């Protein structure tokens, strides 16, 4: 009961959180040891060699051997910490291929989420336990930061581009979502809940809430109503490239560079089409800056992604063993 009102350790609710905690505990012990050794040395020296009648200081110039020892030994230890920290960061920054995508638009001072199935929510994000989730984020105004302490995950959300965070929740419950980058007046009010549900519950949550098209269907509607389909035809006769199957593939540009057709590339090609023109095409596409909203952009991106066969669909059932499923409904902070 006391620990509910005065916790000293944050809840662990993602696959990465245990790894972060392990390194953190290692550092606590290591740095604690270094700190205590220095404190003890200071206290012992200060008392043992305190100024008193009859005691004279012995002048010592120094010692190269000692200096080299306390230069290179700490340096070696630091390298170990660096490698360990970099390894965890590599995992945090490398989303698995087969993941569930959630599109996110941050704005002063709210979080808007769009699920690929079509569900939309504000300041609440429902996700299933045991699935890799990629949060594809952009901001409508200033820089925000998507922070879920229980997942040990944080990623700034920038205007004008997508940034991505990913995690796999291991424990059902409700967790804090904070904006961690100062974003103006109501920064501390830009908070929400991440609701982690058992897969079955999540499925029923997804199907609740009335009929609606999936995000890619919405995107298809926008694609047609904006007239994109007149140039980007599903054959080789269009004035623009055929978008079928391009997502995630390398694209050869007019200037000879090759880029990967990821979310940021598609976004840029809609907003600043002249920036990266595909080889063999003319820069004739107009910009859609100011015409499509961030949410519509997300739908368009989702639609173009749906034109490429996914390595495995959302039908795949997660098989991860879920610890502590009995606490599914308790609010974990």
């Amino acid at each position, binding site marked *: 009961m006391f620990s509910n*009102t005065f916790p000293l350790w944050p809840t662990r609710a993602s696959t990465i959180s245990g790894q972060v905690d392990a390194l953190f505990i290692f550092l606590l012990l290591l740095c604690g040891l270094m700190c205590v050794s220095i404190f003890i040395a200071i206290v012992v020296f200060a008392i043992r060699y305190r*100024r008193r009648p009859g005691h004279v*200081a012995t*002048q010592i110039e120094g010692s190269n051997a000692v200096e080299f020892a306390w230069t290179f030994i700490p340096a070696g230890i630091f390298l170990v910490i660096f490698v360990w920290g970099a390894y965890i960061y590599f995992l945090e920054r490398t989303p698995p291929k087969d993941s569930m995508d959630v599109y996110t638009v941050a704005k002063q001072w709210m979080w808007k989420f769009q699920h690929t199935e079509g569900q939309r929510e504000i300041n609440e994000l429902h996700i299933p336990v045991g699935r890799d989730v990629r949060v594809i984020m952009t901001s409508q105004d200033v820089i925000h930061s998507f922070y879920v302490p229980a997942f040990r*995950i944080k990623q700034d959300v920038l205007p004008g581009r997508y940034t991505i965070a990913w995690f796999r929740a291991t424990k059902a419950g409700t967790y*804090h979502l904070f904006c961690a980058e*100062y974003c103006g*007046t109501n*920064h501390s009010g830009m908070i929400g809940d991440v609701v982690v549900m058992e897969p079955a519950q999540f499925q029923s949550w997804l199907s609740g809430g009335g009929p609606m098209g999936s995000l890619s269907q919405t995107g298809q509607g926008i694609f047609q109503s904006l007239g994109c389909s007149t140039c980007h035809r599903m054959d080789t006769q269009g004035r623009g490239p055929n978008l079928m199957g391009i997502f995630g593939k390398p694209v050869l540009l007019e200037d000879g560079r090759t880029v990967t057709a990821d979310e940021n590339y598609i976004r840029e090609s809609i907003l600043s089409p002249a920036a990266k023109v595909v080889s063999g095409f003319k820069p004739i596409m107009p910009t859609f800056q100011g015409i499509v909203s961030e949410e519509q952009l997300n739908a368009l991106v989702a639609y173009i992604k749906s034109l490429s066969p996914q390595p495995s669909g959302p039908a795949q059932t997660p098989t991860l063993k879920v610890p502590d499923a009995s606490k599914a409904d308790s609010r974990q902070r």
Partner: protein
Amino acid sequence: MASTAVAAPERENYLNKEYGIGSWLFTTDHKRIALLYLITITFFFFIGGFFALLIRLELLTPEGDLLLPDTYNKMFTMHGQVMIFFFLIPAVPAVLGNFLIPIMIGAKDLAFPRINLLSWYLLVIGGLMMIYTILSGGVDTGWTFYTPLSTHFLDTHVIAAALAIFVAGFSSILTGLNFIVTIHRMRAPGMTWSRLPLFVWANYATAIIQVLGTPVLAITLMLVALERVFNLGIFNPQLGGDPLLFQHLFWFYSHPAVYIMILPGMGVVSEIVTCFAHKRIFGYKFMALAVIAIAVLGFLVWAHHMFVAGISLYAAMVFSLLSYFVAVPSAIKVFNWTATMFKGSVSFSTPMLYAFGFIGLFTMGGLTGLFLAALGIDVHVTDTYFVVAHFHYIMVGGMVMAYMGGMHFWWPKISGRLYPENWGRLAALIIFIGFNLTFFPQFVLGYLGMPRRYWQYSPEFQVLNVLSTAGATILAVGYLLPMVYFLWSMRYGKHAPDNPWNAAGLEWKISSPPTTFNFEETPVVTWEAYNYDEIPEEVPVG
């Protein structure tokens, strides 16, 4: 050994040579300018401290109740701006450095005495602009001015604040320039580089950063102002700019600025530890090299403030690795200070208590830096109270402790008076306790996930916040005490002998307070720094 000092008519010195406001406002004496700086930054320290107190009071409860959210945002913004640009950066160099560097190297003054006075005027002009900003409604960008928030989404006095810092920056550049030239050109005969006190080395390293780094901040703030006024697309993506460019430019200065703030403090501690252990410094060469290494490497680690900002995976790894490199020379310094006490003759005078505090708190601040440089952990704790605690351990636990220690150490030289020793020790103890109570809980809050710059917070964070606020009130008492007894000592304190601590160094060979030109004749230096074997030990009385 108390009253070897002088009777009724005082000897002529820099303080009593001339009187009148004009003799101060138009002085070119580095010692008088140091005192002008002292008054200025003390004033700003209490303004910044007042903002801090309001922040801590607001955070006593989870609800936002004492202040409006915009007011709270202004408080932490101006607390940061005032404390960093108008207190911490000028503190040791402009006050103690100005006073001591010429004396320590055996010179009459700095190389450019008038530019020195100009530097002070620039700080005052910048300071007045900052006060204008505060009085006309304040600014709420955060001290970091992140774009596009600062350029297009706030209606407060962003440009006034940016220009205030811009002007104060030139004060810092000119001080740095003055120190570099002085240390190169004005050393007394025999005062070779390898005989320089480490305080001079530390200020030299600082001056290099001031001269090379500060112009980048000035440019960056100008670009913010230009984008704000003329809608130029530099940082705002809606105008074709790049918000990360701002962060790179800002931290290119603002990370080295952390070393502008801490290196002079390290210099102070080297002087204090040797004096009160009555021993030469352990590993002089390594100590001197370490400050230069920190100054150089400090320029190569800026993007460690941006690990979650959207920089590439590999950029983050390079900056993490380089950040560990800069930790090495800092570690060397801590080890050497500790080793200096080995077989010394350690006295527990007030300055030494501050030096103990510095070493302990700087060690904790430095070690928590290892956590933040570890990429995987930084993702979790960056932009939380963990970072707030970390940099306050370095800046307040480290730098302010060193500054207070230095003020006590050199007060007899500066004022010609002794402060009450027992009050000094008591204040040092109160500051140490108050500091830890304020900032240690913030490490825990940070790991729990409480983001920084939050006006209201989740109730489970309250206990730790209450502890922190309690500590802040203790800390405030601790800072007011020296203010009171320093002022008291100017009138009622015992006259100080020339060398009250039996310390090494040229500044202790001249009168307290010094005469206007410091030395009657140019000294010839034939000894190394910290030649404590040639100086009798002060035997504790009673």
